[in-house]
């Protein structure tokens, strides 16, 4: 078997770990005050993620289940599901985004104040999932808005959503306020609002936002008939 070419993919499901010592060193280099501020800031945001009360399909039920007594997303300070996008920090795209719904999803995203995050929950939100080949199904919400965490599953268990939320918290805790790798919301040149696709005669126009969507590089395969 050794003659097979090694895969270009990294290890399965790379886990976003805690802040490593190297990260800390990096933080120190920014200066201790900045680091402390940064940590306070990141701590505040990561412990007070209010999701948008916004359910699309099946996954929304598991999202609600994550807020119920058994799983209790409140433990993470994230049970305040705000129905108004103005007060939400996190958009959990929980379910199939249809082409008819896509403009509304983008509009909601534009209405959310920075810093904002997006979790694509479930197969449909990531890639269209089982409904991928449908004529009215968007093949992944990341064609129009940037996604921070992808949670596969159909639907993911509520624990998986909690896990995704914890991954997001870790990601927020690693963000920088300054420097080359500063967080998206601190950089004015990075767009926070995105053009809303229009309903066309056959499809959405445009079908994707090239500023957001980076298609995968095709893997080397022989391409069978």
């Amino acid at each position: 078997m050794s003659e097979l070419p090694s895969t270009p993919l990294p290890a399965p499901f790379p886990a976003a770990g805690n802040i490593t010592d190297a990260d800390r060193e990096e933080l120190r280099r920014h200066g201790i005050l900045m680091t402390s501020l940064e940590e306070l800031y990141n701590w505040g945001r990561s412990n007070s993620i209010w999701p948008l009360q916004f359910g699309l399909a099946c996954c929304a039920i598991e999202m609600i289940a994550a807020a119920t007594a058994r799983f209790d997303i409140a433990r993470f300070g994230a049970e305040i599901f705000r129905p108004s996008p103005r007060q939400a920090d996190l958009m959990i795209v929980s379910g199939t985004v249809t082409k008819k719904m896509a403009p509304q999803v983008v509009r909601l995203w534009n209405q959310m104040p920075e810093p904002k995050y997006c979790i694509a929950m479930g197969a449909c939100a990531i890639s269209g999932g089982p409904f991928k080949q449908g004529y009215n199904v968007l093949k992944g919400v990341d064609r129009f808005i940037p996604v921070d965490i992808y949670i596969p599953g159909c639907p993911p268990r509520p624990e998986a959503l909690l896990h995704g939320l914890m991954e997001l918290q870790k990601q927020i805790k690693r963000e920088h306020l300054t420097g080359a790798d500063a967080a998206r919301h601190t950089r004015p040149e990075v767009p926070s609002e995105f053009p809303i696709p229009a309903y066309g005669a056959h499809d959405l126009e445009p079908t994707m936002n090239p500023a957001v969507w980076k298609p995968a590089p095709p893997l080397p395969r022989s391409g069978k008939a």
Partner: protein
Amino acid sequence: MIIAAIDSYLEVAPLAWRDAVVQWCPEPTQWLVHHLITIVAILAVFGTLFAFTPLAERKLLGRLQNRLGPNRSGLPWWQNGPKLWGLTQPFADAVKALTKEDIVPAAADKLLHFLAPVLIVAFSLLTFAVLPFGRHLVPVGLDAALLYFFAAGSATELAIFMAGWASRNKYSLLAAMRALAQVISYELPLILSVVPIVLIAGTLSLQDIVLAQGFWTFGFLPHWFVFTPWGFAGFLLFLVSALAESNRSPFDLPEAESELIAGHLTEYSGFKYALFFMAEYFGLTALSGLGVTLFLGGWQAPCAFLQFIPSWLWFMGKVIGMLLLFIWIRGTLLRLRIDQLTRLAWQFMVPLTLINLGNAAFWSLTAGWTGPLQLVRWGVSLAIIVIPFVLLGRRLSAGRHPRTYRYAAS
């Protein structure tokens, strides 16, 4: 003896500390420092209380719903440190709210949109000026404190209307209209429900009203107004009106999450939203403080022998108890509709408060009845309020009752 000394020191401790600071300042600024310290103290104490009330609400609601509530926030700068039972949650929320982008809708009335959250916090803070927090702790000893309280308190609804109008959002507009209807309907029963107190105590000064409740039968039965028939009825009426005035469930119509998204708050983000949040809890705390002052003996201890505990602790304890009651009600009840809300006010609350006023008059006239007459006094007074309650209640819920159903076997 020592206990008594410590007690009397604790009682005046806040004042003593303030005076110490004031004396340390140069003479011409002393009056300013004196008032500033008072203001800062109120802001600090009730600010802290505000910080923890939403946390308590979230935890208590969690417990009501068989779950835990926030418990994992921990500390900044100490990532894997203790979780501190989530006690730092409010600070995380505050940090987040402060650093959130502030969006003003393009179509909004910019000035009103900005003014509304500022005004609502200002108005709700003004009411704290007249509450007697302890035996010696009265920020402003107004003679007409009660009038001042209602005047300042009802201005918050104006701010809600401003917020709803300025947002240029249909949901906000509906909420603004609801808020106005609600405040006009419930201002009357709220004031009428406390008039009996004025009648009995013979004063509008809140401190004097508290002092009027500072007696005990046998040393452990407090003479709080809530323990009289008219007082109890008045307390319940006050409670309902207070819930409506502070837009709390079951009267949270302006916010009405399931109908109007977030009502007047729909277009507010970041810190402006936090200000509304703050004002809601300040208003709630102030109304709780008023309820405690008027009906629950204010800073008075429930039993004579418990007086060694400083009076301001009693006050705070009672206020917190009232807040928990509000949260409990929120965790259980559902929301009324706007027409039912106003009907409740005009057809039920207003008549009952008026009858209760007569009841208090009766109580005041029969103050001399003793012995077996005392029983008659209680009986008559109870009847005066219970019979109209039952009759009006029947009228209010006419035709609505749990039903029985038939079954088909096939």
